[in-house]
């Protein structure tokens, strides 16, 4: 369980006094096995929030607690999937997928076997020796996903993972992710700027407002699981999406 209480983050407070407040008084919880999507206009600090939960950057106030322990850095129960994939361009697919395992000190045989498993899971068998530049964007993010899953995290932190992909690839990977998630039900925090994506994937959608970044609302998505593309036609899906759009449009108008 992820518990965020009164979290505030300011950038540039050390040197030049007047810092930028990126996050103010963030309160929310993500339950075990829950899929929470976070949406908001750019500048609402959603990526900052994710980086804080990942333990990559410090915060100024409040607390971030995972399974009862405050976050003071990255931890073995978490893994991150990055928007720009963050693959090592000099390493082949197998090496990239095995990276997290190697960093965490597994034996070479274990790394290899586990990476091979995950390559199968994301459908990249036969591409083990390819370099990232030889893969399409969608395949690159499959590598990113496999790398995160390989270390078997209980919490998956995804920072607009499909944001850099074209529409068809994005939809394909969304379905893929849903199917994967049904199998293991990991806790997921998923940043997006797509309303369809937020509703399609999330058990709950967290809506944020910008300048400073705050939580506007936590919206439960009343859709059954497992979900397929068909839910997009359901009135529940459309209602939540429409509601999100109203809220976001109001924010844009104010901005």
């Amino acid at each position, binding site marked *: 369980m992820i518990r965020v209480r009164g979290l505030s983050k300011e950038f540039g407070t050390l040197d030049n006094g007047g810092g930028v407040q990126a996050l103010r008084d963030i309160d929310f919880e993500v339950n075990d096995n829950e899929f929470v999507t976070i949406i908001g206009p750019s500048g609402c600090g959603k990526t900052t929030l994710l*980086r804080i939960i*990942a*333990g*990559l950057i410090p915060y100024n106030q409040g607390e971030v607690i995972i399974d009862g322990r405050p976050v003071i*850095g*990255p*931890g*073995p129960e*978490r*893994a*991150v999937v*990055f928007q*720009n994939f*963050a693959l*090592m*361009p*000099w*390493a082949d697919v197998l090496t990239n997928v095995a*990276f*997290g395992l*190697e*960093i*965490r000190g597994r034996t070479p045989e274990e790394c290899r076997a586990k990476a091979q498993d995950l390559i*199968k*899971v*994301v*459908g990249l*068998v*036969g591409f083990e020796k390819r*370099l*990232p*530049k030889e893969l399409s964007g969608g395949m690159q993010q499959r590598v990113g996903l496999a790398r995160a899953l390989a*270390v078997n995290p209980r919490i998956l932190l995804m920072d607009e993972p499909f944001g850099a992909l074209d529409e068809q690839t994005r939809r394909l990977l969304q379905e*893929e992710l849903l*199917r*994967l998630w049904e*199998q293991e039900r990991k806790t997921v925090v998923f940043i997006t700027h797509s309303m369809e994506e937020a509703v399609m994937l999330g058990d709950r959608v967290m809506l944020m407002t910008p300048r400073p970044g705050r939580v506007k609302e936590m919206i439960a998505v009343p859709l059954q699981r497992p979900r397929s593309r068909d839910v997009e036609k359901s009135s529940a899906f459309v209602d939540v999406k429409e509601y999100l759009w109203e809220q976001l449009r109001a924010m844009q108008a104010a901005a």
Partner: protein
Amino acid sequence: MAFAHGSRRSKVQKKSVHRTGARRNRMKRSIALDWGLRLSVFIVAVASWELFLGASQNFLLPRFTEIASGLFRLLFFEARFWEALYISNQALIFGFVISLFLGVPLGLLAGRFRWADRVLNPYVGVLLVMPVAPLIPIVIIALGLGLAARLFIVVLFSFVFITVNTRAGVRNVESSLIEMAKSFGASEAQIWRRIVIPGATPAIFAGMRIGLGRAITGMVMVELLLVASGLGRLLLEFSGRMQSDFVFATVIAVIIEALALLAAMQALEKRVTRWAPDVSIG
């Protein structure tokens, strides 16, 4: 859960095999074209050289054929040339290796750590713009006429270029990669070994190539200017005796050696940085 690529992939593979074949043919053709063009440039240069000689009536300048025969005699009948080459190469090779061991770590430090860059930056600037040649007499007074002085000059000529390139390479390593490594709990040592150094490798090689060119310049210059030894001494002797064919031949021999070293380095670079976009200079 695996994707339905099974059948699709085999088709894609067949297609790509096809394409590789076509690409290989195209590559062969373009290599032939390259060499054709290079040869034409060479012929034009040689012809202009001969025409210029015919027009200038300057009998001190050797004809192309004389240079060629000079080179032949130098390489096969002039034992002193090989001796001189050996002596000069001591300064060159050792000096270049010292430059590497000095330049790469300094560049890595300056690229990764702000404080190191702040400390080093003014000195790097000075070394980049400083004309080294006027310092040669002082270095020789300080270190004598031996190998030490020659090494020092070679290092002074080359290492800072390796440092600057290495630093740029480290800076260009995507910060998201470092963040990714951190997200898996990588230690600083792991970040260096797995991310920073591999990421900076292409730029380090570029720096090595520039550094090698500079090292060769430094080697010849110090030998010509004050320490009459090695190839410099040979050059001075030849020009003293007005054997201009040998002078040219010696210069060409130095160029050939430099090109061979560069080619060896490039071959190594290609093996190591198969992944990088082609940015080779020189």
